[in-house]
């Protein structure tokens, strides 16, 4: 019987530009931060290159998060993080209409479960006001339970944070990438940067698949940020990966929770969130576990059991619903809590490191901030941002299975059609990994986890890759 290697169905993506070309800017890292910066520079007329070690974007820290767009109400006051979160939020709100990105403003409640926590709510509100977040209402237990009737009756009260929203955390960066490409940016996937030196004129960056040249390097390498940063000649920070484990409840539970349920944060952790997602299920997590490894995103049964128990405590009716998925993400935390943004004009090197849990929200704001810091103008008249489209896989607007003309539904749990899968596999920005395909379509991400569709999806991937990859 013919073998099929499910881990190597995809060929490494080829580059579509002259490798001798000297770029204005090379962005290292195709996460949510890197794609945002890539877009910003490309839209502003810079000849921009995105270099990514994976065969798709979002293969590192950006693949696993809680999919929430934050207001910044609890960000560190007067920090760069706060400024970028707030700016990123506003940019997203504007861009979501232009690029048709997924979005639902559900607001969040910071719930107090005991008197001690209840006493902290006013201080959290005051901090939020100080952060320039204006719509923050204190709710008593009655008001809270009227709003969220399935919340455990043990809840004493809450701070209602208007504006906290659900987004598709993978569609937005894909749109940033596509817009950057449409504006002339180039990409090099499956190219891991291994070293580099400055010739006096430009950087020569060595990668596992050839050398690239760029006048300025922007390091947005996430979990590898400190390693990449050594190329510039100094060691300024250390990445300490922080693992976050999550569990996902079936879409049957979606109606149980209408608002993002946040805990009162402690000094150590922001704590476990129970939230509906853009994909119509309920997410619970993350944990916060510092570790050495940059790749170990294994789940641990005991921890997942704890998360489950926590979820049942917060929303008891979740007991009646099934857990359909578990995963762990790694946040690129560093040896200091703040963002590590450093502009070294002499070295033509910009570091964007330590963007831990707020990167999804801050990405667009951070990109604007970096562009302004960089202070080089590539064109006086940037053309209007090109319009790009990305497929909708959120439950907020109609999905492909609600339209006619598909051939068959391949993934029954998530109702993913064959044409959605094929489309997601095509072109320069097509999926380059199985995970990338899941993030673009949700195929295999439902309750049966591939019982029905794994073999069919694998066959489509092979067909679209145009040959045997065995």
């Amino acid at each position, binding site marked *: 019987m013919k*073998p*099929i290697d499910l881990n190597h169905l995809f060929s490494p993506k080829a580059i579509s530009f002259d490798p001798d070309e000297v770029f204005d800017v090379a962005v290292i890292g195709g996460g949510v931060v890197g794609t945002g910066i890539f877009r910003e520079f490309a839209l502003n007329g810079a000849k921009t290159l995105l270099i990514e070690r994976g065969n798709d974007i979002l293969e590192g820290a950006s693949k696993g998060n809680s999919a929430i767009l934050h207001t910044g109400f609890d960000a560190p006051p007067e920090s760069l993080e706060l400024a970028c979160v707030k700016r990123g939020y506003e940019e997203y709100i504007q861009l979501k209409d232009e690029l048709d990105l997924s979005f639902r403003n559900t607001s969040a409640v910071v719930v107090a479960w005991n008197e001690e926590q209840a006493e902290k709510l006013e201080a959290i509100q005051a901090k939020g006001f100080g952060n320039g977040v204006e719509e923050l209402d204190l709710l008593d237990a009655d008001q809270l339970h009227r709003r969220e009737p399935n919340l455990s009756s043990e809840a004493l009260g809450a701070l209602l944070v208007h504006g906290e929203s659900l987004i598709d955390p993978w569609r937005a960066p894909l749109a940033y990438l596509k817009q950057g490409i449409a504006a002339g940016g180039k990409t090099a996937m499956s190219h891991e940067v291994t070293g580099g030196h400055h010739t006096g004129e430009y950087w020569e960056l060595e990668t596992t698949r050839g050398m690239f040249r760029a006048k300025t390097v922007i390091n947005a390498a996430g979990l590898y940020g400190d390693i990449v940063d050594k190329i510039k000649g100094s060691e300024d920070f250390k990445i300490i990966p922080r693992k976050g484990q999550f569990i996902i409840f079936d879409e049957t539970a979606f109606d149980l929770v209408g608002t993002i349920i946040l805990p009162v944060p402690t000094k150590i952790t922001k704590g476990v969130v129970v939230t509906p997602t853009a994909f119509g299920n309920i997410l619970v997590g993350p944990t916060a576990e510092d570790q050495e490894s940059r790749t170990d995103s*294994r*789940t641990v049964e005991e921890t*997942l059991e704890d998360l489950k128990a926590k979820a049942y405590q917060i929303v008891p009716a979740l007991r009646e619903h099934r857990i359909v998925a578990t995963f762990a993400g790694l946040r690129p935390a560093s040896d200091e809590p703040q963002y590590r943004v450093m502009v070294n004009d002499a070295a033509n090197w910009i570091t964007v490191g330590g963007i831990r849990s707020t990167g999804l929200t801050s990405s667009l704001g951070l990109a604007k901030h970096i562009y302004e810091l960089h202070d080089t103008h590539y064109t006086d008249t940037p053309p209007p941002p090109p319009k790009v489209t990305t497929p909708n896989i959120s439950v907020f607007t109609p999905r492909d299975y609600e339209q006619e003309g598909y*051939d068959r539904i391949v993934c029954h749990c998530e109702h993913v059609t064959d044409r959605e899968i094929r489309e997601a596999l095509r072109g320069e920005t097509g999926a380059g990994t199985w995970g990338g395909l899941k993030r673009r379509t949700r195929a295999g991400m439902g309750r*049966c*986890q591939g019982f029905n569709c794994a*073999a069919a999806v694998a066959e489509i991937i092979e067909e679209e890759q145009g040959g045997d990859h065995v």
Partner: protein
Amino acid sequence: MSEQPMTEHPITEIDVAIVGAGPSGLSAAIELSKLGQKNVVVFDREAEAGGVPRHCGHTGFGIAEFYRPMSGPDYAAKLVETARRHGVTLTPRSSLLKIKEEVLTFSTPEGLKHYRAQRTLLALGARETPRSSRLVSGIRSPDIITTGALQRFVYLHERAPFKKAVVIGSEAVSFSALMTCRHAGIEVAAMIEEAERIQMFKPLKNAAETLLKVPVHTGVEHIVIEGEGKNISGVTIRKNGTETFIECDGVIFSGAFTPEGSILQTDVPDFNLRNHSSNVTQNYQTTNPNIFVAGNALRGALTAFKCYFEGRDAARAIHASLQTSKPLRTVSIEADDAIAWHTPSLIDLDADHPRLTTLRFRRSTRGTLLTLLNGREVMRTRIDAVPFLNVTLPWFDQDVKEGDRVELVYQEE
């Protein structure tokens, strides 16, 4: 893709909608045809009718229904052919999205379609519980799959996804996974079971070990899937405090079947997937008297012939209910948590008494099962049960009235 044309299809009126063209759904359709019931439509989300047997390569199907042993695909083909011969209308590529006020909405390649059915039979089947729902530790990898996925790779696509597998579980389907691996040339490094004994007849352990050379580990307390990135290097198991590493490049989660589809939970009132109480009456009727459920959608997986006969019986009940419509008066049979599922779990007070209650225990166990009517013992049954065999209780032969409370309470020895 949102620019695709959107056709508004009108609601089609039908008498009976059967959702799921597996053994129970097709059997029900055949029976309704024999009973002269017109205007019956069978829907299936796949392009091909036949259900799960389509990718079960082993033999043993069809003995009770067609009087000869056949392979799963042959059995599925025979069912479909028989249904066609009886003039059954098959509507493939139709995915049920919701049921609201007797209107079923399907996603189809021609757009969303709506049917108002006087009676609906949900014969949605079952699927295995994947790794994630079991919260098992370790890496994520596309090489972690269920038996169902493996069988689709092997029997529908003729592909072997890995070279050396570990099979988690020791139910009937787990042994089927061993055979599928053997057929595909996949070595099986071990079979792993958390319970103290295999979840099948004991001699099968010996058969697996001696005939198939597959080591079988029972009483395993903890499993970790090891590897780097998405590549599996093996599985670490802990037993009596000792950890053992077993090398493999694929992991198969087998068994722990659970009803398919979320529609049972969201759109069928009172239907409970967790303890299976209040699900269906002896006539396969739910508390919404227009909705019936039969086959493996009622619990985990039983053999195809059991589903076939359930489908037939449900069809007879549906046919009868269309002749004389009456309000449904029921009493729920509440079961102990030791019981995985029991059918019927509702008593239709105006129908003949159920002859039997069929149930299964979650674990191997010995003890006494008490049937209580309003807290009073009406039957006492000795139990020596294994989780892979049905336990049947006779009817307790007492009149049950509206408002009564019937409970099954288990006392372990």
